[in-house]
């Protein structure tokens, strides 16, 4: 299929407008069905038994008493999920994370599960399962886990990426390095050098909907799974592989999803529910509690980062260096590597070096969280950049503009940039009235930049034209925040019809070809590309049908503004044929009219944002309020600007929570102390101001409409922007996120004591 994805510079009639979303009424009336809102006949209730220990050998599990309890239909352990991963290390980790095999590796690690006729029976059954643990020493802190005497989490892990192959196992699964030039030489040229260490605590994506699914496995090997997920095709692949099912016999339907932010890209409960259903011979519904969501799903990495940046008196950065240590939970990951790649991506640097260490700890397996790993690296780098600007005596915005990456700059992660948007976001911030608004006592202003990669990926879409001229659009990327509205706009634009004539749905895995997940800010970018391609294929059919109706050559039929138009003088007497008129005749001109598309949407293009933040800090209590916030980000082309604003605002709000409140707090026993929304406090309505947005549109050359992904970048700058604002307000550099009241008071006290 010859699809040309290049930007065409066209004008728009639908794209860029703000119509109501097609799934809206269902969502304001309570009719929309999420993960836990679906039931099957004869369904059982599934519940999971979890380790109370951070690190323990599972010596024996006795399920006999639970099995004898009336109403219990199945009890499973790791034995019921045998290893079918065939040497695929990442899938084996996923399997072990779903159900611990030899060791429980964190507080909350699943060790057994039951299916029973009701919730009460299931809960009773869990209490009857006897697990004999041998408790081992544990480690949850990133720096402690790197010490030589730290408890070893996996004795089969030897640090990858070292010059010499290590002889001893380690909690560091990998060392990675990025950069170019010679940083020693660069620092020698510097008139000013800032060197500082930073820490960030672990946070959770905090989606309001807990993981939920209904699984039904039949004796003939067919199965159904209803689940809230960011990628039902990926869940199908993973579940089929872990359960030994044939991919096409497992039909996965994605429910409405109540938030994901990266946290619903990984299977946890789903293989367990399928295994329970297979054993019980009945459908099983498994819904996590909030406590389980915190203890066993998500979260992001806790980090420890050292940064050193040097600059000349004229404000030119001469060298930049960072060492980044990220927790991965108890399994190998590549989270520090992403931090090492993104850390200095905003800047034009002659000499840059970043080193990442992936650190195993007794915490839940790290999962992606919106631009994963980038916010922590940006916090450290952008804090140091601000401090350096202050030492040189140059305005922090001017300092960043002077050193900003541009087209032709070698990115700190390697390649040379094409056209990019960091400069324009900085210029927009420089001109923004927010930067000139007066500040009162105890208030401070901060700004910071952020970078994220954005992905494309495999995408498959169907567009079917009904006989009344309405269009149904079936996409395979889960709608996490209004993409059905955006994709309907794109279909309407390409076909030249009204938005109201298009109805978009998310199809199940048996109705459409494979689609990658809605992650990496790819949903609207890639599915809009596939929708444009499908619409163009449908237009080809529409032109053929019009040619038949007129009895002329298809070469003489063009498609303009939703109509077939006969070209050439000899057809001068033919009027236009609307899509509706052609559709009405479709039964007589060759049957249904449809357009299909399968493609790999690559060339998503990197994304930049710059944020401005004002805070007020109460010096008595250390409490911080964000009083004004502005997001400036490049969208390429905003298909539905209201939902683009929503992504900017939502990312900023999550960043504000991360910067000021949110953290996983572990006790000395290695147990999570705050697995609930009361003690893990995400921002509430009264914590936040309005969040102003400015959408820049620098077209992406690799998309027909110029679209870029917008979902993730907005969470990258807030930690740094707020830290810079707080530091400016209190006069002390804040180096530990979250900047909770006790940390701010401690920093103020330390400053007073000198």
């Amino acid at each position, binding site marked *: 299929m010859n699809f040309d994805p290049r930007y065409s510079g066209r004008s728009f009639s639908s794209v860029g407008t703000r119509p109501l979303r097609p799934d809206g009424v269902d969502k304001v009336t309570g009719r929309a069905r999420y993960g836990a809102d679906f039931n099957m006949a004869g369904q059982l209730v599934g519940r999971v038994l979890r380790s109370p220990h951070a690190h323990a050998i599972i010596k024996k599990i006795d399920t006999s008493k639970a099995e004898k309890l009336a109403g219990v239909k199945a009890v499973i352990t790791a034995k019921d999920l045998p290893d079918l991963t065939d040497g695929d290390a990442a899938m084996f980790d996923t399997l072990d994370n779903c159900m611990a095999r030899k060791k429980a590796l964190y507080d909350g690690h699943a060790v057994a599960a039951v299916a029973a006729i009701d919730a009460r029976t299931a809960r009773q059954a869990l209490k009857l399962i006897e697990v004999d643990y041998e408790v081992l020493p544990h480690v949850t802190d990133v720096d402690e886990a790197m010490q030589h005497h730290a408890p070893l989490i996996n004795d089969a892990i030897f640090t990858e990426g070292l010059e010499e192959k290590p002889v001893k196992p380690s909690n560091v699964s990998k060392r990675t390095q990025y950069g170019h030039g010679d940083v020693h030489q660069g620092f020698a040229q510097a008139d000013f050098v800032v060197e500082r260490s930073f820490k960030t605590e672990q946070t959770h994506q905090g989606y309001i909907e807990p993981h939920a699914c209904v699984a039904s496995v039949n004796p003939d090997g067919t199965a159904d799974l209803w689940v809230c997920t960011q990628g039902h095709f990926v869940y199908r692949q993973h579940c089929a592989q872990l359960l030994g099912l044939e991919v096409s016999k497992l039909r996965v339907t994605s429910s409405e999803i109540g938030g994901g932010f990266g946290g619903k890209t990984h299977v946890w409960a789903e293989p367990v529910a399928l295994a329970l259903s297979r054993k019980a011979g009945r459908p099983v519904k498994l819904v996590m509690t909030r406590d389980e969501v915190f203890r066993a799903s998500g979260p992001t990495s806790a980090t420890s980062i050292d940064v050193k940046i040097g600059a000349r008196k004229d404000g030119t950065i001469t060298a930049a260096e960072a060492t980044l240590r990220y927790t991965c939970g108890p399994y190998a990951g590549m989270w520090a*590597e992403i931090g090492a790649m993104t850390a200095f991506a905003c800047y034009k640097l002659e000499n840059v070096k970043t080193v990442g260490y992936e650190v195993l700890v007794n915490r839940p397996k790290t999962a992606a969280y919106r631009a*994963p790993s980038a916010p922590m690296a940006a916090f450290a780098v952008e804090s140091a950049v601000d401090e350096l600007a202050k030492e040189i005596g140059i305005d922090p915005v001017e300092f960043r503009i002077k050193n900003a990456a541009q087209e032709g700059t070698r990115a700190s992660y390697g*390649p*040379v940039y094409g056209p990019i948007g960091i400069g324009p976001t900085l210029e927009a911030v420089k001109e923004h009235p927010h930067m000139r608004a007066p500040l009162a006592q105890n208030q401070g202003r901060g700004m910071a930049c952020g970078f994220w*990669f954005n992905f494309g990926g495999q995408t498959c879409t169907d567009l079917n034209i009904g006989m009344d001229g309405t269009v149904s659009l079936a996409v395979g990327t889960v709608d996490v925040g209004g993409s059905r509205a955006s994709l309907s706009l794109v279909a309407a634009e390409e076909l030249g019809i009204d938005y109201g004539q298009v109805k978009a749905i998310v199809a199940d895995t048996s109705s459409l070809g494979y689609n990658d997940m809605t992650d990496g800010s790819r949903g609207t970018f890639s599915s809009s590309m596939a929708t444009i391609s499908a619409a163009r294929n449908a237009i080809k059919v529409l032109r053929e049908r019009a040619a038949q109706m007129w009895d002329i050559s298809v070469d003489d039929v063009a498609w303009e503004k939703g109509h077939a138009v006969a070209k050439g003088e000899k057809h001068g007497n033919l009027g236009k044929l609307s899509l509706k008129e052609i559709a009405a005749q479709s039964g007589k001109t060759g049957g249904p009219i449809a357009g299909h598309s399968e493609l*790999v949407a*690559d060339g998503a293009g990197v994304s930049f944002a710059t944020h401005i933040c004002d805070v007020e800090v109460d010096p008595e209590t250390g409490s911080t309020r964000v009083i004004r916030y502005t997001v400036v980000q490049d969208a390429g082309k905003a298909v539905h600007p209201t939902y683009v604003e929503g992504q900017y605002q939502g990312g900023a709000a999550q960043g504000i929570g991360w910067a000021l409140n949110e953290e996983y707090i572990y006790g000395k026993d290695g147990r999570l102390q705050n697995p609930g929304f009361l003690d893990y406090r995400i921002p509430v309505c009264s914590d936040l101001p309005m969040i102003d947005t400015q959408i820049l549109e620098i077209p992406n050359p690799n998309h027909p409409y110029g679209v870029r992904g917008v979902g*993730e970048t907005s969470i990258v700058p807030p930690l740094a922007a707020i830290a810079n604002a707080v530091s400016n307000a209190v006069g002390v550099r804040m180096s530990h996120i979250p900047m909770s009241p006790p940390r701010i008071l401690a920093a103020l006290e330390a400053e007073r004591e000198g």
Partner: protein
Amino acid sequence: MVEVTLWGALGQLAGGKSKVEVEAKDIRELFRKLAEQHPAFEPLLDRGIAVAIDGTIYRDTWSKELPEGAEVFLLPRLAGG
């Protein structure tokens, strides 16, 4: 012949080289020849590699051509949220 720049971990597997020369017209051929010339790359190729061509990152378009004189940069395949 295109000059391909390797990221750190891949460079170590190539015996400390940061660049290799490969005769390849597209990404598919590039990966095939890299695996032939450097069998140690295979686990990393299996885990997934992205190719930046003149700054634009391609993850799955194996038919993408490698234009004469283009900057070709290999990167690990990343996770997103």
